């Protein structure tokens, strides 16, 4: 009883006071309740894949948004996880529940490797160098077709759960857990260090922070999450092929990340949840279907023109304002700050927005 009242108090004071947090709560509830309301296998399939790609996108944001290491080859980790999990479960007959963790672990190692190789690279050099890694991996895969299945990949993998609903929950729960963990990480002192590294690495090092260690750690964590997502996808589709390492996939996650808003873990997740089902839905119309990538690109371009920082920062700015005194966020309709009581005036808030976000 005490816990219930405590939970209710927390909800009322922490969550419902802010529109954005309420939205997140509603979204989580919707995700969890979906199979009870709408049991269509096709819809469940789309949402399962959306959840898997959401993990992928969130992991990219940690790397690119927070640390400023814009990774153009994130598909490497995705593919590493997929292939490792596939190979282990097929060749050694292990259960997929074990091999997905192995996939994440191998992807973590790849993350360390790539992070180490990219330590001295900055900005665009780093981005373009990371583009090369999945392509080199693809070359290696094609060079050893007996091991990797060449252009066909590995097929006949086992599913994690047997029913569409089961698979959906595996993906959704994993996504909620991983994204929440990443967000907590980004919101902690670790995250502050990452911000510092992005904004001014020299100053961070001068302050005594061991930046190479943090940079490699972020690469590893992001890689592990992406590898986990890759393994999930491989076991869902039952095929782990070179399509998991394609340049197009790397570009796709960059688009999701920036479209949703960098340096917010939830931004790319929102982007995936908006864009992936949209493109899939467009694809189901016979005439329009062949144009869906075009429509996707046009939407992205148009949204960028109006919301250059991404979708979620723009939405958040519309529904919330920042208190000028204590810098905490409030609902946009409020007149005084919920925490310090200062007056929330629109002119002041606009000036805040010109100077920069928090």
């Amino acid at each position, binding site marked *: 009883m005490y816990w219930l009242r405590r939970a209710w108090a927390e909800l009322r004071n922490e969550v419902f006071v802010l529109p954005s947090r309420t939205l997140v709560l509603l979204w989580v509830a919707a995700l969890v309740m979906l199979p009870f309301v709408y049991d269509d296998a096709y819809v469940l*399939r789309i949402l399962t894949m959306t959840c898997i790609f959401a993990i992928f996108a969130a992991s990219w944001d940690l790397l690119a948004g927070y640390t400023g290491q814009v990774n153009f080859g994130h598909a490497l980790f995705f593919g590493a996880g997929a292939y490792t999990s596939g190979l282990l479960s097929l060749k050694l007959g292990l259960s997929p529940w074990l091999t997905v963790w192995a996939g994440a672990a191998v992807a973590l190692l790849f993350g360390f490797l790539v992070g180490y190789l990219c330590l001295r690279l900055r900005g665009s050099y780093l981005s373009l160098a990371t583009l090369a890694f999945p392509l080199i991996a693809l070359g290696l895969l094609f060079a050893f077709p007996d091991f990797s299945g060449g*252009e066909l*990949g590995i097929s006949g993998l086992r599913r994690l759960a047997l029913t569409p609903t089961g698979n959906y929950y595996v993906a959704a729960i994993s996504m909620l857990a991983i994204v929440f963990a990443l967000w907590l990480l980004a919101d902690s002192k670790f995250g502050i260090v990452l911000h510092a590294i992005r904004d001014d690495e020299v100053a961070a090092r001068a302050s005594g922070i061991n930046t190479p260690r943090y940079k490699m750690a972020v690469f590893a964590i992001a890689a592990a999450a992406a590898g986990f997502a890759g393994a999930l996808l491989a076991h869902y*589709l039952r*095929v782990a092929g070179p399509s998991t390492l394609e340049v197009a996939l790397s570009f796709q996650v960059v688009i999701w990340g920036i479209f949703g808003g960098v340096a917010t873990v939830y931004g790319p997740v929102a982007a995936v949840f908006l864009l992936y089902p949209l493109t899939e839905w467009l694809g189901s119309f016979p005439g329009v279907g062949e144009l869906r990538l075009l429509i996707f690109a046009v939407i992205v371009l148009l949204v960028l023109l109006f919301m250059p920082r991404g979708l979620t920062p723009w939405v958040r700015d519309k529904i919330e304002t920042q208190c000028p005194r204590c810098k905490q966020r409030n609902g946009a309709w409020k007149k005084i700050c919920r925490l310090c009581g200062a007056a929330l005036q629109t002119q002041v808030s606009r000036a805040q927005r010109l100077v920069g976000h928090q």
Partner: protein
Amino acid sequence: MLRTIIAAHLFALAALGFALGAQAQTIKIAILGPMSFVQGEHHWNGAEMARDEINKEGGINVGGKRMRVELVRADTNEIQSVPDATNAVERVITRDKVDFLIGGFRSEAVLAMQEVAMDYKKLFLGVGAAHSKLGLNVEQNYERYKYWFRVAPTKDVDLARTLFAVLGSIGQQIRTDLKTDTPKVAILAEKAVWTEGLVAAAQKNLPALKMEVVGLWQPSAVATDVTAELSAIDRSGAHIVFTMLSGPVGISVGRQMGERNMKAVAWGINVEGQKEEFWQAAAGKAQFVSTLDTYAEVEYTPKTIAFVKAYQARFKKAPTYTAATYDAIMILKDAIEKQGSTNADKIVAHIEKIEHTGTGAIATFDKRHDLVWAVGKTSGIAVQWQDGKKVPFWPPNVKGMQPFKMPAR
């Protein structure tokens, strides 16, 4: 009293309408393919021809009831995205509620699509993907995969048998024309899993056929420049370039061989060379390029010429092997009518024992639900590009075949 009579009439009308509505039930077949690309186009065209032909006769006779055929066009986008293909399969099964699935092209995608179809125990007739794993699944796990049949093409290892048969005949022509005992063969195979077995088989069998292998070159499937390979092949003095190419590298090979006026002749698998657009894509340079193919205006089966002519008249282009969706639908029609039902298990049992005279092959299926290979039945034909036209030249005993030409020396 009057009200009862009116009610009875209304009820009868409703029942009649209901029965008529039920009568207007259709057999829904999903045609799955990459619709913005040539392969998907031909998938759809072949299927349309079959559907129109069947519906003109009133539909398929299902145990006394006539049901029309309705096609559902599903763009799998498989060339660009494997998940999109599986989404399409799931959509047509759960949303459009189709009864049968036909099509597929990219082997990596079809493997994933096969899984979805088998989950729902829907019959999936493959027309396009040659990889043996698809049939191997049937052998290793019959109860799950038995709903899969490969109507076209023959599985990749059987393609080798046709290749060597034709290679032998070309080699013989070279022996007589050029007065050389052992023709030299350069193997030009794209680096891919499907060519591995073929390359190994070639390296083993060619010496037995009294031909010398002068080298192996393996460009990438999407290579656009094969100058290096062709220069080296030129220098090796090869008479035949044995090609195993499925990607656009086939176009580059055809064009650059023509531009260099190479004396060697190209024979093998050149999937791009099977398309009508090949001559234009190679800028009119691909003279003498020959490849394995399925359709031409020859009497491969009694139905081939009529089909090719009708297809050409309707769609203004010649069919490629993915137009065998026509044969797939006809096989389904045959099975449904003979079994009197659309029940998947019964149809599976029927197709396993069928011998179907189609337009591209006379088809029988083995225990892997793959086509049984036989010259003149399922081997396909060989065509050579001469002056902008695809000229069929093998098997020589089929009516309509013409002679194979070689570059002047």
